[in-house]
């Protein structure tokens, strides 16, 4: 699960200050979208892998990165890297924890994810009470990356971050 990012340590703080606009507890490092950062004096090239093709958050993340680095006196170029494609495995452990605390169930592994979405298996833990007695309400959720679930014990509806692999 640990990715070998090629990121200069002194810039990590700025990168971590940029969050996913849809999920503001997740920064771009924890989301796993930053592939490489190349510094040349005050010019920076950021290689970024988009999550879903049409995710509107990607453009915002690009703009936010430019703004954050401009404050530190850098000019930034964003380059999209399509291959290899992003997978939910690239979300860090810290990111998964932040998602759960925020009320979004973190993605299960590929097999369990299929069981949950296609065979109605009860494997997703409720983010409110921790019960595994949960059911799928809708395969499509508030954003392309999520599905909607409801807990049958505490009745809380919540989002589940679908596994993408």
């Amino acid at each position, binding site marked *: 699960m640990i990715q070998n990012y090629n990121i200069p340590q002194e810039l990590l703080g700025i990168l971590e200050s940029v969050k996913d606009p849809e999920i503001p507890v997740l920064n771009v490092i924890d989301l796993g979208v930053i592939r490489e950062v190349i510094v040349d004096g005050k010019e920076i090239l950021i290689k970024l892998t988009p999550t879903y093709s*049409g995710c509107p958050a990607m453009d915002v993340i690009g703009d936010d990165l430019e703004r954050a680095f401009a404050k530190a006196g850098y000019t930034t170029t964003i380059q999209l890297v399509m291959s*290899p494609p992003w997978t939910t495995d690239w979300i860090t452990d810290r990111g998964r924890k932040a998602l759960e605390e925020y009320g979004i169930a973190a993605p299960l592994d590929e097999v369990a994810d299929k069981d949950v979405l296609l065979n109605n298996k009860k494997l997703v833990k409720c983010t409110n009470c921790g019960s595994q007695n949960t059911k799928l309400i*809708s395969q499509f959720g508030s954003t*392309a990356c999520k599905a909607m679930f409801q807990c049958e014990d505490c009745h809380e509806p919540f989002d589940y971050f679908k596994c993408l692999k």
Partner: protein
Amino acid sequence: MMKPIKELNPQFLESKENKEHLISYLLGVADNYLILAQRLGELCGHGPNLEPDIAITNISLDLLGQVRSFYQYVAQLKGDKSTEDDIAFLRKEREYRSVLLVQQPNTDFGYVIVRQFFFDVYNKMFLNALQQSADETLRALAFKGIKEASYHERFSGDWLKRLGDGTVESKQRVQQAVNDLWVFTDELFHSSKADDAMITAGVAPDMLQLREYYYEKVENLLTEATLEIPEVPYFQKGGKEGLHSEYMGYILSEMQYMQRAYPNSRW
């Protein structure tokens, strides 16, 4: 990621003719996504209930995302000042290469689902085959797109079964949609001169070879949905050559309105 069937000769794109064929081929693929996304976008906030409403707009967004990557690639190949937005918004009707199927209107939910299902089955097969393209960019786009296309096919296929094997009313309506849209399916397998050149170069998959498999897959699901398979004396075509149905003008006038009224406007 799969290995390409053959590697592209590095000099391939130095030929002006090859480059033009590739651009034409890419537009043939991408315009289908754009027009279908626009059709689906019309339904935003109009779904029969929350789940399909969200699903349909999500699918529309996925297609728009894919179309952007294709248009960005076209813009890069063109090498002039054109951008993805110019390609999407500033062409004339005859310059779009989308098939007739994706232009068909949202007559009712049955039509929306059938149109989507006919396209999704094709699109998933297409992206699967495109993963072996000799072109590296296309391989990456296919690898990315197929994950989303699988979700789409599952959604439209499930709804087709639910409507077909549902009530008397839903069955009758969805059967009507199948009967009306069937004539537009064959065009998905037509190839232009540019497409043929790309097939020979190993850039594009030869979809004609998958035509039989497509109909087998579609017919199996229609049978499972207790629907009848239509028989038609001939299939409709034209969109791929830029000869569109009347619907296209209306779609474009709405889609292009902002760019035509306020040229170069940006969000």
